[in-house]
């Protein structure tokens, strides 16, 4: 499983990123073969080098997350956000 990469150094899953902390997308991981959710996330602009930030989270269980990428905000469930590996810059 490629998801073992989580919490490796400064790389975390987007679902684990604290609210308001700026990070940069590393990659979107397919959970199943040819994952349609992962593909849609890439269409939305979750691609390497793009900066992301969690703006808000839902009232129950902190789910879903409101994520800013590019000029747009998307509501992602935690399971969806977990597909996105992000890097938190060391200066933070």
């Amino acid at each position, binding site marked *: 499983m490629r998801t073992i990469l989580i919490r490796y150094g400064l790389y975390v899953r987007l679902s684990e990123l604290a609210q308001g902390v700026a990070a940069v997308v590393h990659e979107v991981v*397919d*959970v199943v*073969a*040819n994952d*349609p*959710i992962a*593909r*849609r*996330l*890439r*269409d*939305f*602009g979750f*691609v*390497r*080098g*793009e900066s992301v930030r969690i*703006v*808000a*989270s*839902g*009232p*129950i*269980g902190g*789910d*879903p997350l*409101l994520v*800013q990428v*590019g*000029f*747009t*905000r*998307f*509501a*992602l*469930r935690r*399971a*969806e956000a977990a597909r996105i590996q992000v890097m938190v810059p060391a200066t933070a």
Partner: protein
Amino acid sequence: MQLALVGSPNCGKTALFNQLTGGRQKVANYAGVTIERKEGHFSGPSGRSFRLLDLPGAYSLEAASPDEAITRDVCYGRFPGEGTPDLLVCVADATNLRLHLRFVLELRRLGRPMVLALNMMDAARRRGIRIDTEKLARAIGIPVVETVAVQRGGAKALIEHLDSTMLTASAPVAEGQTAASVAAIQTDAVDLHAQVRTILADAVSMPRKTAAIDDAIDRWVLHRVWGLVILAAVMFLIFQAVFAWAQPFMTGITAGVDAVAGWVGGALTSMPLLRSLIVDGVFAGVGGVLVFLPQILILFLFILTLEESGYLPRAAFLLDRMMLSAGLTGRSFIPLLSSFACAIPGIMATRSIQDPRDRLTTIMIAPLMTCSARLPVYALLIAAFIPQRSIAGIFNLQGLVLFVLYVAGIVSALAVAWFIKRMRSDKSEHALLMELPSYRIPHPRDIAIGLWERGRIFMRRVGGIILSLTIILWFLSTFPGAPPGATDPAIDYSLAGILGHWLHHIFAPIGFNWQICIALVPGLAAREVAVSSLATVYAMSGNESALQSVVASQWSLATALSLLAWYVFAPQCISTLAVIKRETNSWRNVWIAVGYLFGLAYLASLITYQLASALA
């Protein structure tokens, strides 16, 4: 020349379509308003004529939902009965270029003649976004024009461009991407985004990524506690307003209908049968429904304002977790909210739901949302049985009861969805993936058009199905006439009376009298017809006073509550069943819906009636 409007969701394609063709298609501020292709025509200053297609918004040609599939098929020239467009008019929101340009670049690969309309340029300027359109046009290799779709003349540059365009014949393009490997698609996605970034860095300057006002509003509206409080307050205000604001208009309509009926009745005294048809049939029946027009318009005023403001996707965000545990998705929120107006557009709006399971569940529970056709029935019974007084000084008790009825519909819908989820064997992941648009101040003109359209639809129903069923019912309750020497009212001997007394055996356990039983039969076609039918039946039985006072004096509270419970569930709307058949392409789903809704209706009424009778 054949044109098609293509672009990402919520970039203003339909507003541009309306601007170009003078059309009145529905516009709102969320992704997925347009779910079908729509056709319109216009001509340029030189007299050149254009046929324009408005297409559902799509994030990518790799369609993820039924509405995106329409756009993909039209772009590839594969849509049945639709030729390949000669020119694609790509539309992009100038304030959301990072996302929208990617799709434009994907479309460019089709190799078709294209033009890019940079829409919402007014909003972009307000936010201090500067776009060098010439640089942009050079970088993406297609002409670029600026538009403001919501402003008169805001599409002038686009029309002039289209008018002077020379077309080279477009060749069909094979679909290469689907065959490509996953790795290739991934690199490809990164590739297009990299191009977008380079282009934006070169041609666009943007002071900040989002509008400052959006951030400020969202801090409150999406707050964990305040967000929910605001949502509840907004919903509650709507139901209060429906009762409190509509009252004077309703009184006016009733007085008007009574005056005309009295005048016509007076002129027809020499022809008692015709007088009965006009006064007891047409005026009592149609007038009984017409009086609810103000309440329906007030409900729509709120729904349309919310749709235009961009608040609805926020509400979906707040409720997603709750809906997920019931087996739905936050995406179901907008179709379900539309179902408060009418289940038909609500069920059609489910086309923007990607997951087929979520979509089917949403379709099956949409009829449980309290549609505006139920409002006449609720309003009649509430006005007759619930005293007009205020609770704690601010709440109108009648509005409160109405609110409870709406909540009953919602709670049962969630319970049914939860049951469907439990029954389903496929438990794989469902997706949310929803864009939250920028807030917009609702456009009074759009709202006025929306209200006009809704008012027209209601009036067409009144003049069409409601009027005709009322007349048919009048005949059924008039013939055969009473035998000589009869002591009971004549209607007891008529076909409708016989049928009503017979049906009464089935409905007696839930407290319905035979008049209600008669009204339920034509009421199968459309819910409001039950009100017009009751009005006709009681008028035929010799009750000259208004339906509301007749009901208040002749029904027990238990019967009234039982009928309210019945209306929360009963699927008495042929058009809804037809649209379920069309959207799911399955009669089985229709029969399941009919069966479970009638079952729940009878059960709920039985419990309500027996409890209320025991307590009384």
